[in-house]
């Protein structure tokens, strides 16, 4: 039996990790130095979620994939020039900050209400995907709160695999401590999954896919509403880089074992 799903992927942008990310006190609270000017990439965990969604859609004809993003819309537009080339999706855009210093509860509220408003969304077929963590805020809290808001009680976090069984139920592998997996069965939609890395490679860019996606992306960007986010819920006393820092160094052809040894030594030091 094949089921057609409605998959909503929540994901936005983070500054390109190769950039210098320097916390500063901005006019409206903590921020990163030159954050708007830095190039950004799709949050890597959300990216895995998106590629998993697209893969599922490929094997389940009739499935629709939506990408819901909260971020500065001009930056999202730039991001779409890459992401839209990877896999087919429909775009839902919320114009607002994508900073790691936002209250995840506010973000979850905004995303959940945007999901509710997707025309024709069938909640009985709904899979909400996102990253279980984010490169800009590693709290791992947003997806659960979205689930809460949408009234979905089957939530899986740190997932690396979702298999649709012949009877339509799901088999999900979640990461737990010690490099182990917890395997769960779930009767079916609706569910919320916070993805870890999954198992899929990043699809290559294909401008032809991108051009098709742009048909919905441009209108979505044009009609994007400013997201109403309250910023008074959280007060930051101070923001600083972690005390313990590892300097990036580039060494050619180092075996994995060597790298692992070095990291262990660094942690212990």
């Amino acid at each position: 039996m094949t089921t057609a799903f409605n998959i909503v992927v929540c994901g936005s942008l983070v500054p390109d990790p190769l950039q210098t990310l320097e916390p500063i006190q901005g006019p409206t609270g903590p921020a990163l130095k030159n954050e708007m000017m830095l190039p950004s990439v799709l949050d890597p965990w959300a990216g895995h979620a998106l590629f998993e969604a697209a893969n599922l859609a490929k094997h389940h004809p009739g499935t629709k994939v939506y990408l819901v993003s909260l971020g500065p819309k001009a930056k999202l537009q730039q991001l779409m020039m890459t992401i839209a080339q990877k896999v087919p999706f429909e775009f839902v855009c919320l114009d607002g900050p994508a900073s790691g210093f936002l209250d995840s509860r506010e973000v979850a509220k905004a995303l959940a209400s945007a999901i509710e408003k997707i025309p024709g969304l069938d909640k009985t077929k709904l899979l909400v995907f996102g990253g279980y963590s984010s490169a800009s805020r590693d709290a791992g809290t947003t997806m659960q709160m979205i689930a809460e808001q949408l009234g979905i009680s089957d939530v899986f976090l740190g997932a690396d695999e979702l298999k649709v069984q012949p009877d339509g139920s799901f088999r999900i592998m979640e990461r737990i401590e010690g490099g182990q997996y917890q395997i769960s069965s779930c009767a079916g939609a609706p569910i919320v999954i916070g993805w870890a890395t999954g198992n899929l490679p990043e699809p290559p860019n294909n401008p032809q896919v991108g051009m098709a996606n742009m048909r919905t992306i441009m209108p979505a960007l044009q009609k994007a509403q400013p997201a109403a986010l309250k910023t008074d819920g959280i007060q930051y006393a101070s923001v600083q880089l972690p005390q313990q820092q590892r300097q990036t160094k580039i060494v050619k052809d180092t075996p994995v074992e060597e790298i692992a040894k070095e990291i262990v030594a660094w942690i212990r030091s």
Partner: protein
Amino acid sequence: MSNINTEKTALMSTLPGDDVRQIMWRFADRYEHQMVVQATRSVARGMVARLVADKQRHTHDWTPQKQEMLKAFDEAGVTAAFMEPDQGGYITGPKNLVLALVAFELAWVDAGAATASLANNLALEPIHEKGTPEQIHHYMSGCVPPKPGEKREILRGSFALTEPLPYVGVDAGMLSGKIRIAEWKEGKEPIIQVEKRGRFITNMGYATFVTAAVDTDDPRIKSSCMVILEKGDQGIYDPGAPTLKLVHQLSCTHDPIFNLKIPASRIIGGYTIKDGVIIPNYNHNEVIEAVFRRTRVTVAMMTTAKLLSAIEPVIRYQRTRYRGGEAAKPGTPRYDLGIQQKEDAQHRLLDVWATGEASASLGFEAARLFDEFDPLEKQKDAMFLKDGIKGPRAQMKVFAEPRKRALEYIEIMGKPEAQRDAKRVQDLENDFLTMYVVKESLADVFCPACKLWNTGYGATMMREAVSLMGGYGITEDCPGFLTQKWSDAQLEATYEGPECVQRRQMSLTMVSDVFLAQFKNWIKDLRALDAKKPGMGAGTLASAMELWLWSIEYLQNAKDANGKTLYAGQRQGVTFPMADALAWLLGSRQLILDTLELERKGPENSVLAEGLTGFVNFYSDLSYLQAARAAGEVGKVCAELVYGYQAKGATCALPNAAIKTFAELRSKLDGSLAGARLAKDRAAEAVTQVMIPEALDYPL
């Protein structure tokens, strides 16, 4: 003491990113172009960079790893970017800008990779420009990668003009490749015997078809032409030995040998038969002229990309040079700035940067010009074909009136907008032959100018970039592969016509009245701009352009001490330096125009809001210093040519009035440099402050 530069101005915060580039190079509203850029970039900074890091440049052979690169191009849509949607491509309309962007992105990492990709388009170009509809459809769609499930081998092509010595190099008129009629049965298609040897033919190791230039060796074939050869045609199709080249090793170059029988339908552009003689619709010169005028722009963009790609690694090297040493404690200038504490290091980097920017501005303008020119040329070709207008004389006659109208149009456009007769402007713009003349006059200067200057002077400045990295610069480990990029630049300056070919073309096209009329308008515009914005070097550039204009008019009319004409076809000592000088001027002007565009359109992009002033300030300063550098070149060239052909001790052989005018113009130019070095100092400060990423985004 007051210091004019102490007034606080906004500095550029980060290196210019895609938002800035899209505005300056005018593709902010072309999403398909932006996507091709991203797709190409991911192949370049991913697979291509790994090939270089893995030492694939160390072999002349076409290895399986290099072959994988072609597949990556196919998958990322790079190969099909050249084709129309009905041929299997995905971009509608002219592709000059998008291909220039592809060349730029690939060459940012490795220009050989760019050559490998673009040589396929070069092979297709003769067919694309002059082929019959059937030829166009067959080969263009054949070169589109098969869709999943489609059973078909992709076609890959080579372009074979160059031949073993002594023939075809710069002087492409003489061909030793020949065609004869092998068989011509009554009522049947003639069969042609083709003999051609190629030298330095790109893609030849794997090409399945070749577009080859050949001359007639048979009274029953009227002229030279280009033909399409296919692997599998009857006879010898031997790719020959790999060329032992020291550059561009990620492209595949061979010296092939062909001796094949082909049907006459493979003559590019078709033929007619009159009195038992095959008359090709286009001789080989007509075809290659249409080809090179476009493809040379993409070559120009390769060296440009490399210059700009050098900025980030050089800054990183300079800043981190002393870290780890005793004296460089975090927080000290020695730690934070390293070599950037030294003014010369900043200034030399700025010279590289300004060259890269000006050449990008020039090359992308040339590409956009061809995007405008393409449809006009198609319309003209269709008209000429329909009306049977053939041969240079008949064509000149058709253009006599449009030429006058073009001059009228340029004159009107030289007036302030309020004073123009809008109706007349509209009428002239609706007349495609008039617009053809206007655009052609520009395209015929901009294409050779960017090929000449971007690659030739670019190669010189690439050496400068290498030198800024010290010993590291000339090692394999140098981030950004700078030495490879430097040596590769010599090929970019050579293939598709070395510098002398570009100079030769410019020496003819830059003295056309239609071009010079526009040139005069530009001087006026720059003067007006300088009055409003004195900080961009527009005044300096205008003075340099006036000097050049006066000199070229003088040189065309004056004679040397021996009574010989100065500006003449054979007198390359006069014509060629003037071509170089013009290229400097054009690049400098385009950089100013792109900076103005950034200032105008930047506010529409909310991402840029925060940093826009810093970018505009930096680019204005860069424009100023580039205008000053161009002015220096122009002053030097013009003075040497104007005075240098007089008998020694007799500068008075020049009429007094002429000396006076030249000296006045020269002195005005020198005076206009006031402020240029202050602009350089400001730009240098920006260079020491600008934030760069922690590491390069492609492997070493």
